[in-house]
């Protein structure tokens, strides 16, 4: 078994394209190690594989007294700007629509306990995150995930992130139709698509089945889809109301209506057109203004819409736009058990409380959706294995993650609910209160995030403990409030759309900094994140539990019958809302209240010294740089194949590297060149060879001729010498491509 790795063991289990992408990434890691890749290019490359930075990865940590250097081995070796190679990082794992199988849960649990700290964390966008992961473990981790159909591709970086979808889609009482297959098709279509490789910033899509619920939160997404049906010539036609330019972040924007109704056959080409407009006109230099919301705001929705419509007309036809529609009539989820009813079965004391908050009656009679309430979105590998067995027993593969950091089991036959509850409870996953005031959402904050200012998770844990302890006595008006916490202004905890939201900041008192949370009141979770809350002032972190008590008590005392929290905040106004927290805004001295100067769950004297440069924005690198890096990796793989005495594969990879390099160059002028080698070579010849732009001062067209020769006359049985020669030629060709690109300036001119 010596030298047999996961790559060999899983070769038959991984889809070929996924396996190849991972090999390429591994090659790029090796090239980075050899100093042959630019650090920014590699950073964006790894981000697009979901390999993210983590707090302290710049090698500095404040210990409460001073900032100290963490003495990693090979401290000079980096994996991106100011990011040490050996420092542990975070791995984000995409879960489109939150959909998971039991087998996928098993493998996620295994990679968590072998490569991270054994904790799986569900994010606010239905992803999983593993923390404290070493970059050198990531290729094998990706292979193991790929073997069960999970990709980490474009989980981070300036790319199309996880496509979220309502976790109730398909079983919801109020949806127009099931948005799931559309969100899946969307995710597949744009994954790695040429037109989404040149964004200045990340791009988050969401799908929702109905307007009034929270569902997919489409109003706060870059591109959001609300299911609609209209009648045309007496026939029902499916489609979506499409929103664009929403987003939270520092400056939240409500999405604008791009289209009142986009028929189902048009949603993919329209998304492609949106992507092209964003890639072409979106900000690239100033990452703080690079999300699509700023482009929409700058152009105005009418002009943006016009550009998208014009762009749509120019798109070359793609069969994938509608191919998936043929599968829609066959799309269905299958329950594992027949429908049954709860007919007064004897159940435990905790069951009723859990049933009230964690069970949703599906529109299909006799079935329910059960929410597994994960504290702070966390579960252990051990819990996950048992959970996957519970899923197999009761619901099969009908499992989804939610944007409130929980997991749902769908299609639970109703009479199974009591036994299911007992089994969840036995592994510590039977907490009631899902979706209520105790089910608090929090981003990682200072626990692991480089940008975190205050401890969002520490605060969430404290509030959860306190509110759970008194949950039985909480007035009904409070029970259903949403509390959401972000560790900084970037809003990963989605505080803008909660009733009571917080985001971390700091204030100075004397010579010390004190962790604070800005209080944001009256955001709306329902109606797909229908409106954003008002920031009313910042309070010391340690006062937040009292602040929550004060606000909720006043709400209970003053609310009119049926008045929601948003309506109450709207009625009392910002000034009065601020006066509620005013008593807490006074800052004590360190000597008076030293515990105010450390954060929840962290006894160190508070400091901002650990904040690093965030990688949320990715690195702004040119499209050419990203694509030529892939070509270089293919050439590297060719060398590996030759070392493994496989000249045929080496020859093929070397040729592929030249085609990829040529394509990268062609795409600086002509984005739609496609993937056909014939077309790429032809365009390369016309644009760069015949014009002599590719010519070297001395070698003239020699390097370009390498490509033409191999393209026209492939060697049917190359030996090692021939393959070696071709590899050398491919390396020279790639070098010449770099030179040519810098000579012509790499302007991306759209030419259809």
């Amino acid at each position: 078994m010596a030298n047999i790795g996961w790559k060999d063991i899983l070769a038959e289990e991984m889809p070929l394209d996924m396996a190849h992408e991972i090999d390429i990434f591994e090659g790029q890691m090796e090239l980075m190690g050899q100093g042959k890749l630019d650090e920014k290019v590699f950073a964006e490359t790894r981000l697009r594989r979901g390999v993210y930075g983590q707090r302290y990865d710049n090698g500095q940590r404040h210990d409460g007294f001073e900032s100290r250097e963490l003495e990693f081995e090979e401290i000079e070796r980096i994996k991106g700007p100011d990011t040490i190679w050996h420092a542990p990082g975070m791995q984000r794992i995409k879960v489109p629509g939150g959909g998971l199988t039991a087998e996928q849960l098993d493998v996620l649990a295994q990679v968590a306990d072998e490569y991270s700290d054994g904790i799986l964390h569900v994010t606010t966008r239905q992803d999983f995150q593993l923390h404290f992961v070493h970059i050198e473990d990531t290729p094998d981790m990706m292979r193991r995930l790929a073997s069960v159909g999970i990709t980490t591709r474009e989980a981070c970086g300036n790319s199309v992130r996880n496509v979220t979808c309502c976790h109730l889609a398909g079983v919801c009482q109020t949806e127009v139709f099931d948005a799931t297959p559309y969100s899946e098709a969307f995710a597949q279509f744009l994954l790695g698509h040429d037109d989404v490789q040149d964004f200045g910033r990340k791009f988050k899509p969401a799908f929702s089945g109905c307007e009034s619920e929270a569902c997919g939160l489409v109003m706060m997404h870059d591109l959001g889809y609300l299911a609609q049906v209209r009648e045309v010539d007496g026939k029902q036609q499916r489609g979506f109301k499409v929103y664009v330019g929403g987003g939270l972040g520092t400056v939240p924007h409500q999405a604008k209506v791009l289209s009142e109704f986009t028929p189902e056959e048009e949603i993919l080409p329209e998304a492609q057109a949106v992507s092209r407009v964003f890639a072409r006109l979106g900000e690239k230099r100033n990452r703080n203004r690079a999300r699509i919301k700023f482009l929409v705001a700058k152009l105005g929705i009418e002009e943006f819409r016009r550009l998208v419509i014009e762009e749509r007309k120019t798109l070359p036809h793609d069969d994938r736009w509608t191919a998936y529609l043929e599968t829609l009539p066959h799309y269905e989820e299958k329950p594992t058990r027949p429908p049954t009813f709860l007919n007064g079965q004897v159940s435990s004391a905790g069951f009723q409380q859990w049933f009230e908050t964690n069970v949703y009656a599906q529109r299909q009679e006799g079935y329910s959706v059960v929410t597994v309430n994960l504290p702070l979105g966390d579960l252990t590998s051990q819990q996950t294995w048992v959970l996957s067995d519970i899923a197999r027993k009761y619901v099969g593969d009908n499992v989804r993650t939610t944007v409130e950091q929980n997991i749902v089991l769908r299609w639970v036959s109703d009479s199974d609910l009591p036994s299911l509850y007992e089994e969840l409870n036995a592994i510590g996953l039977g907490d009631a209160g899902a979706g209520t005031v105790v089910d608090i959402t929090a981003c990682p904050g200072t626990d692991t995030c480089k940008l975190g200012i205050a401890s969002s998770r520490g605060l969430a844990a404290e509030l959860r403990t306190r509110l759970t302890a008194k949950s039985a006595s909480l007035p009904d008006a409070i029970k259903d409030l949403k509390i959401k916490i972000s560790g900084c202004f970037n809003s990963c905890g989605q505080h803008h759309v909660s009733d009571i939201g917080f985001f971390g900041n700091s204030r100075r008192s004397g010579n010390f900094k004190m962790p604070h949370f800005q209080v944001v009141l009256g955001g709306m979770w329902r109606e797909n994140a229908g409106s954003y809350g008002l920031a009313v002032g910042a309070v010391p972190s340690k006062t937040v539990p009292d602040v929550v008590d004060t606000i909720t008590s006043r709400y209970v005392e003053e609310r009119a019958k049926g008045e929601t929290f948003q309506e109450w905040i709207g009625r009392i106004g910002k000034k009065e809302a601020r006066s509620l927290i005013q008593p807490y805004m006074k800052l004590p001295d360190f000597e008076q209240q030293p515990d105010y100067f450390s954060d929840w769950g962290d006894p160190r004297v508070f400091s901002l010294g650990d904040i690093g440069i965030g990688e949320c924005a990715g690195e702004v690198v040119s499209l050419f740089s990203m694509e030529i890096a892939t070509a270089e990796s293919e050439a590297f793989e060719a060398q590996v194949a030759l070392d493994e005495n496989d000249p045929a594969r080496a020859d093929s990879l070397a040729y592929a590297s030249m085609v990829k390099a040529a394509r990268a160059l062609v795409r600086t002028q002509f984005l739609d060149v496609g993937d056909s080698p014939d077309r790429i070579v032809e365009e390369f010849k016309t644009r760069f060879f015949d014009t002599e732009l590719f010519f070297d001062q001395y070698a003239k067209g020699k390097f370009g001729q390498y490509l033409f020769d191999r393209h026209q006359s492939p060697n049917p049985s190359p030996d090692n010498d021939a393959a070696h020669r071709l590899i050398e030629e491919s390396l020279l060709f790639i070098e010449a491509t770099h030179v040519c690109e810098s000579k012509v300036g790499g302007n991306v001119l759209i030419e259809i």
Partner: protein
Amino acid sequence: MTAPQRMSVKFYFDELSVDVEEFIPVFHRWIRENVVPNELLLDVADYKHIIDGPAILLVGHEADYVIDLTDGKPGFLYVRKRDLGVDLPEALATTLAQALNSIRLAETDVELQGKLKLRTDAAKIVLLDRLNYPNQTPNGSGSNDAGQTAQSQLAENLGVLFGENVTVTRVENDAREPLTFELNAPAAPDVDTLLGRL
């Protein structure tokens, strides 16, 4: 047998009269004072909200230290993640040495002294490496079973440390879980004695 990618050993608490939360400032101090030789300590993670899980983690580059409540058996878990050596005996020696050293650190810590005591007559050893140590059901012949080979190597090496009558039992856990063994010794040698034998 090649060294596993990761290996952990958990010693169980005999006494624990301190809330797990109180390990947080202790671990932060351990980082600040760099108390563990040859290891880089990085951060403290608080997972006490998870029932029966790894309550408090001291995360390091080479290893993690965990106040672990899994299976309702509170213990001090040492997870070696890097530099385990070339083979299983070396990995075991490295892991045990550092684990025992950390027990001594905890038991003698200025804030924890007298509040905890760990048993040294029982431990759980886990080989976190499904590639080289798959958790397969023994096939009977024993020739291809990594579990059986690992078990005999562990027993041999642990016998030197804990005495001849030590037993190393393979835990009959689910195949998805890592290969796991329980160590039981007839006596509980003190930590210094064990370290002296390593």
